[in-house]
């Protein structure tokens, strides 16, 4: 039996705020197999980011364990690669030096990392921008750079935190297609947070639905569509049916009156 890339076992977490006890996560169990693309969908503000901070080791859970690559790593940092919501590129670094950040932090020689970075930048249509500063790029291109930076991280598991939420609808669709393409030709283990149902269904092998606070896993969905997938899938009747079904279930999680 193969080892899971990521396994969350019974993760619970609450925060104390001036005597108010805020229960955020309630016994979360989830797994990401090697080379699997797993999404988490939930209402906004349901504690998805807290879950990521627990996976990243920044926040300790009240109870439960984080296992990565078959080892318990609860509260330990440096086991994941990460792409945040905003690109968070470093304005004083050139594009290629931004891309090598994760490897640099992991202690790789810069020269080697740069050569790899250049190969990847050329592959995703950013050739000629290696020595440019991030400010000259559009929002969509900055997100591409941020994704390549995550992809070049030495860790096997990539965590993406609503990476396209700040983009306009058109750019977002283009980025989804782009990500699908890159991921299918380079299958890494991915944990993807989103609040867009279509995005999750299009990209993922498996989708977890989270409830409103405290977040519990409502449902685990194995996405049945074969790969490689194309955007046209989104108009497939079965896809639309899945989307409606998930939407109905999530709608019940919204506070009443919405």
């Amino acid at each position: 039996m193969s080892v899971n890339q990521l396994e969350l076992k019974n993760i619970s977490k609450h925060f104390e705020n001036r005597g108010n006890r805020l229960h955020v996560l309630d016994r979360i169990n989830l797994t990401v197999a090697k080379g699997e693309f797993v999404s988490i969908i939930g209402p906004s503000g349901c504690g998805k980011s807290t879950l990521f901070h627990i996976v990243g080791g920044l926040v300790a859970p009240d109870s439960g364990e984080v296992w990565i690559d078959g080892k318990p790593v609860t509260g330990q940092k440096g086991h994941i690669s990460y792409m945040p919501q905003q690109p968070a590129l470093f304005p004083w670094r050139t594009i290629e030096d931004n891309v090598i950040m994760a490897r640099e932090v992991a202690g790789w020689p810069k020269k080697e990392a740069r050569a790899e970075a250049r190969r990847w930048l050329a592959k995703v249509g950013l050739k000629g921008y290696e020595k440019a500063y991030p400010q000259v790029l559009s929002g969509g291109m900055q997100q591409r750079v941020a994704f390549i930076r995550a992809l070049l991280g030495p860790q096997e598991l990539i965590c993406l935190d609503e990476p396209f939420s700040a983009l306009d609808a058109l750019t977002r669709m283009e980025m989804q297609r782009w990500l699908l393409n890159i991921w299918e030709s380079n299958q890494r283990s991915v944990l993807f947070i989103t609040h867009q149902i279509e995005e999750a269904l299009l990209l993922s092998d498996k989708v977890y639905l989270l409830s409103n606070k405290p977040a519990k896993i409502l449902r685990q969905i194995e996405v049945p569509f074969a790969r490689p997938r194309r955007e046209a899938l989104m108009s497939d009747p079965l896809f639309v049916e899945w989307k409606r079904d998930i939407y109905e279930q999530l709608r019940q999680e919204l506070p009443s009156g919405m």
Partner: protein
Amino acid sequence: MRNKYWAKTVWPPVTAVVFLLLAWQASSTLLDIPAWILPSPLAIMREAAANWDSFSEHTVATVYLTVAGFIIGSAVGFFFSFLLHRLERIKGALYPLLIMSQNIPVIALAPLLMLWFGFGLLPKMIVITLVCFFPIAVSTLNGLSRTDPAMMDYMKMIGASRRQIFYKLELPYALPYTFAGLKISATYSVMGAIMAEWLGTEKGIGMYMLLQKSSFRTDRVFVAIAMIVALSLLMFAAITVLEKLLIRWNKNTR
């Protein structure tokens, strides 16, 4: 582009200064003001040229003192900002002291420094440091505490150590703020050097000024003032050039 820059940022101040000098020259000629009260700009320039040999020696001494003091003062400023940034608790305790140090009039402190440390280089360096370190410490500390939260989150998530976060994120992030402080300190440093020279020295513009004042050579005092202004501008320009060299990434957004 270039012409526009000159038209917008260079010509207006130059024109203003030229007009001021013309008005000064005209009034001192027309109103017949005695030279020991207010010499005319032309008389000051003539004096500067005539007395250049001995004056340049004083200038060189002041430049040395200024640059050395500025470097030490900046280093102390950096050191304080890093220390206070690293140790949150000490920051709370020392920050008020830092501000208080700026309320002590250096003029009042100078005789005490002389008393404690004599006439050597040390008390002079202390005076310049007192004048210089504060803007650098405060601006750097400000920059360090403003680190972009999204970048910080990214660094922590990928498992960067505190040291890596400091060198790869916080320090470069604070650099533009530091330069704002360096520019202020650079212009102050010349004033600091002049005050330091009043503690007692053989050569230096500050000393020169004292001597000329007591012999009522107002024109020579003005020569000294003009040189102080010129040196301050020069220090400012040097830091601006250094900033342009070190912080290239802002170029595109400006």
